[in-house]
C-alpha cells in the first residue's frame, strides 16, 4: 500500500481506498462493488452466536477485573438540550472521582458532550486527569446539514479542545446507495479533526440489516475512521450485542487486511454490569484481547457507570448497597 505524502488527508484516504480496491478512480460504482462483495451476514446465525456469548459466566476475580475494565472504557455521556454548565461540571467531577468511598476506582475514558460544552468539560477535567473530552459533531444526531456546517461544527469542537470527535454518517446517502458521499464526508471530517481521534457513528438502528452494518463499518474504516460506533443513543434499537459483534468482526478482518487497528464503541442501551460484561466477553472472543483496552473499545453510556460502581462496591464489601451509596451529581431515578 503506497500512500503519497500530500497536504490533504482526504486525498490520502481516496488514494489509499483506490489502492485497496484496486481501481484507478474511486467511484460510487467501485465502492458499491467492493462493499456488496463482502460476505453476507446470516441474521439467525449471528444472533445465535451473540446469545451464546451472552451465556458466559464471569465470576469472582474475572468479574472484578471486568468491572474495572468496563469503568475505564466508559465515555460518560450527556447529550441533552437541557445540558447546562453545571451539569457538565458535575459529570466531570464524577469522572475525576467516580466513587468517593474508594479512590482506587478507575476513571472513565472520556466525557462525551455537545460541542458548545467542550470548553467547560476541558476546564473542569484539567490537563492531566487522563480523562479525554469527546464531542459529538456534524449536526448530531440526524446529520441533516450541509457539509460546510458539519465541518464548521467539527472545527469548532476541535478548537475548543476536544480530544475525540463523534461524527454521524449521512444515513440517507448510505441507504440510497450513495456510498461515495458517505466516504467523502467521513474523509473530510477526519481531515479537520487534526490530532483528534474520529469516531464514526453509523446509527445502526436506522441501517436495520446486519449486511448494512457490515458495509457501513468497512466504509467508515476505509474513509479513515479511528473508531466505529453504533448509535447516537437517540434511536432505538441502539447498541445491541449482535450489531457490536458484526463490528468487532469488521475491525478484526480490517486489521488482517491492512495491519491497522480500529476501535469499536457501542453506545446507548447498555445499562447494567451484566450487559457490559457480555460485551467484553464478545470483544475478547471475536476481536481478541488486543481490543480489551480503552484505547480500542468504549461504552457510550450514562447510567452504566453507577451500576458498575454498585457491583464494584459489592465485590469489595461483600454486600449490596444501593443508589443512596453511589454519589452522583444527577442521581438516576431508576434505582
Amino acid at each position: 500500500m503506497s500512500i503519497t505524502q500530500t497536504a490533504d488527508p482526504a486525498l490520502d484516504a481516496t488514494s489509499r481506498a483506490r489502492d485497496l480496491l484496486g481501481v484507478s478512480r474511486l467511484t460510487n460504482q467501485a465502492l458499491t462493488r467492493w462493499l456488496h462483495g463482502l460476505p453476507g451476514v446470516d441474521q439467525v446465525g449471528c444472533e445465535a452466536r451473540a446469545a451464546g456469548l451472552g451465556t458466559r459466566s464471569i465470576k469472582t476475580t474475572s468479574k472484578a477485573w471486568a468491572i474495572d475494565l468496563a469503568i475505564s472504557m466508559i465515555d460518560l455521556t450527556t447529550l441533552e438540550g437541557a445540558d447546562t454548565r453545571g451539569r457538565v461540571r458535575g459529570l466531570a467531577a464524577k469522572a475525576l472521582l467516580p466513587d468517593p468511598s474508594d479512590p482506587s476506582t478507575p476513571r472513565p475514558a472520556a466525557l462525551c458532550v455537545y460541542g458548545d460544552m467542550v470548553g467547560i468539560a476541558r476546564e473542569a477535567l484539567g490537563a492531566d486527569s487522563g480523562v479525554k473530552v469527546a464531542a459529538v459533531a456534524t449536526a448530531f444526531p440526524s446529520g441533516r446539514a450541509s457539509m460546510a456546517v458539519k465541518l464548521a461544527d467539527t472545527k469548532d469542537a476541535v478548537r475548543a479542545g476536544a480530544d475525540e470527535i463523534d461524527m454521524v454518517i449521512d444515513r440517507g446517502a448510505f441507504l440510497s446507495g450513495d456510498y461515495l458521499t458517505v466516504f467523502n464526508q467521513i474523509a473530510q471530517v477526519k481531515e479537520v479533526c487534526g490530532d483528534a481521534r474520529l469516531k464514526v457513528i453509523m446509527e445502526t438502528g436506522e441501517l436495520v440489516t446486519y449486511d448494512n452494518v457490515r458495509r457501513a463499518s468497512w466504509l467508515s474504516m476505509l474513509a479513515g475512521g479511528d473508531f466505529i460506533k453504533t448509535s447516537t443513543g437517540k434511536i432505538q434499537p441502539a447498541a445491541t450485542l449482535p450489531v457490536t459483534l458484526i463490528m468487532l468482526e469488521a475491525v478484526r478482518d480490517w486489521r488482517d487486511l491492512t495491519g491497522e487497528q480500529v476501535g469499536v464503541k457501542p453506545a446507548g442501551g447498555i445499562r447494567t454490569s451484566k450487559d457490559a460484561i457480555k460485551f467484553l466477553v464478545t470483544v475478547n472472543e471475536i476481536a481478541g484481547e488486543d481490543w480489551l483496552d480503552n484505547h480500542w473499545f468504549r461504552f457510550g453510556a450514562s447510567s452504566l457507570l453507577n451500576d458498575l460502581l454498585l457491583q464494584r462496591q459489592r465485590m469489595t464489601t461483600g454486600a449490596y448497597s444501593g443508589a443512596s451509596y453511589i454519589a452522583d451529581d444527577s442521581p438516576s431515578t431508576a434505582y
Partner: protein
Amino acid sequence: MPKFEYAPAPESRAVVDLQSSYGLFINGEFVDGSGASFKSISPATEEVLAEVSVASDADVDAAVKAARTAYTRVWSRMSGADRGKYLYRIARILQERAREFAVLESLDNGKPIKESRDVDIPLAAAHFFYNAGWADKLGYAALPGGANPQPHGVVGQIIPWNFPMLMLSWKIAPALATGNTVVLKPAETTPLTALLFAEVCQQADLPPGVVNIVTGAGPTGQAIVDHPGIDKLAFTGSTGVGKMIARAISGTRKKATLELGGKAANIVFDDAPIDQAVEGIVRGIFFNQGHVCCAGSRLLVQETIAEEVESRLKRRLETLRVGDPLDKNTDVGAINSKAQLDRIIALTDVGEAEGAERWDNGCELPSKGFWFRPTVFTGVSQTHRIAQEEVFGPVLSVLTFRTPQEAVAKANNTPYGLSAGIWTEKGSRILWMADQLKAGVVWANTFNQFDPTSPFGGYKESGYGREGGRHGLEPYVKGTH
C-alpha cells in the same frame, strides 16, 4: 497468560442425590437384578458415580412380562386423553427437575453443562410435551389405521450414550402416546439419567409396567432383541449393532426402526455468510464432542475460499474452552469412554498415516479422564478412511470441491445418509442441493438444530424410520415397519 481469564464457574453438584447403587426399574419398582453389577463412571474424572445392575435374561423377561400386563390391562384400554395427561405430567416434572437432570447428565456423560442445560434436557421435555399433544389426536394424524391407529404392544428400545435423556425421550414419548408400553435399555456408560427418569415415572404415578428400564451392556440388549414378547424394536446406535438387530429379527414378526451412524457433509459455497458458516462448522462437529450421529464430520468447502475458511476456523477453534463439563464456560467436554477415546486415537492416527495434514487447537487437557483436542484434518481425500468412517469424536475432515455437482457427488459418496448442511446465500441452490442430497435431514445455513416437530432419520446405512414430528408416530402403530 490471557488478559481476560475466566474464573472457574462450576455448576453445583449438590442438586443431584446420587445413590451408591441402582437396581432395575421393573413394574413400577426398583428391584435388585439377578445378575452382576457394573460401575458407571464420570468420564471427566474417572470417579465412580454408582454401581448399576446388569439385567440378566430373566430380568429382561420379567420386564417384558410387566410391560405386557400393563399393556393389556391398563395402557391399551386407556383413552388417548388420559395417556396424554401422564405424558404432560412427565414433561412438567422434567422441566421442574431440569437442573438435576442436566447436572447428572453432564456428570455421567461428560458433556458440557451448557449443552445439557440448554439443549438436551429442554428438548427432552419438549418431546414429551409434543407427543402428549398427539395422544388424543392420533385419528387425525394420517397414520396407518386411519381414524383408529393401533399400537404394536410391547416395544423394546435400546439407546446410545451420546444423548442419554434426549434419546430416551425420542423413544419413550411417541411409544407411550400411541399406546405402547416400553422396555428400555440405556447405554452401559450412561445409565444414570434413565434411572432418574424411572423416579419421574413414579412421581407422575405412571401405571406400573408402562415404562421398564433395564441396564446392562450388549447381552442385555440382545435379550431384549431376542425376546419373543417384544412386538417392535427401536434402536439408536452404531450401524454395526443395527445390522445385527436387523439380522436377528429377520423372519420374525418384529418390526424395527433403526437410527444409525452418519458421515455428514457440511457444504460451504463461496457466497456463504462466512462467519456464520464457521460457527455452523464448529456446531456441526464440536457440539457434544462430536459424539453426534448427524455430526458434520466432513467439511466440503468450495476451493475458492478453502484457505480463508480454514484460517478462520482455526482461529475460532483456539477460543474453544475444553475442560470440566460442569463449568458453565466449557464448550467441549470429555470423551464419553476409554473405548471411544481409543477408537478416536486409532482413526486419527490412520488419518495422519494416510497423508492428511493434522492440526489441533493445542489446548491444555486435564490429567485425569478421557480427553481429545478439537482436531482438523486438511488435505483429506474422499478415499481416506477419516473421510469414510464415522470417527464419532471432535475430529473434522476438510475436503474441497469446485462445482455444485461435485459437492453433491462427494457428499453422497458414502454408505451413510443421515444429514447434510448447505451454506450459501442463494436460495435456489439450497433447494436444488437439498433435492440431490441423499440425506434424511438437510440443514440450510445452520447445523445440528433439533425440534420435536421435525422428523429425523436416515437413508442407506444410516437406518430407517423417522423420529419426531407426525412421522415419528408412524413406526409405533401397526401397518408400518
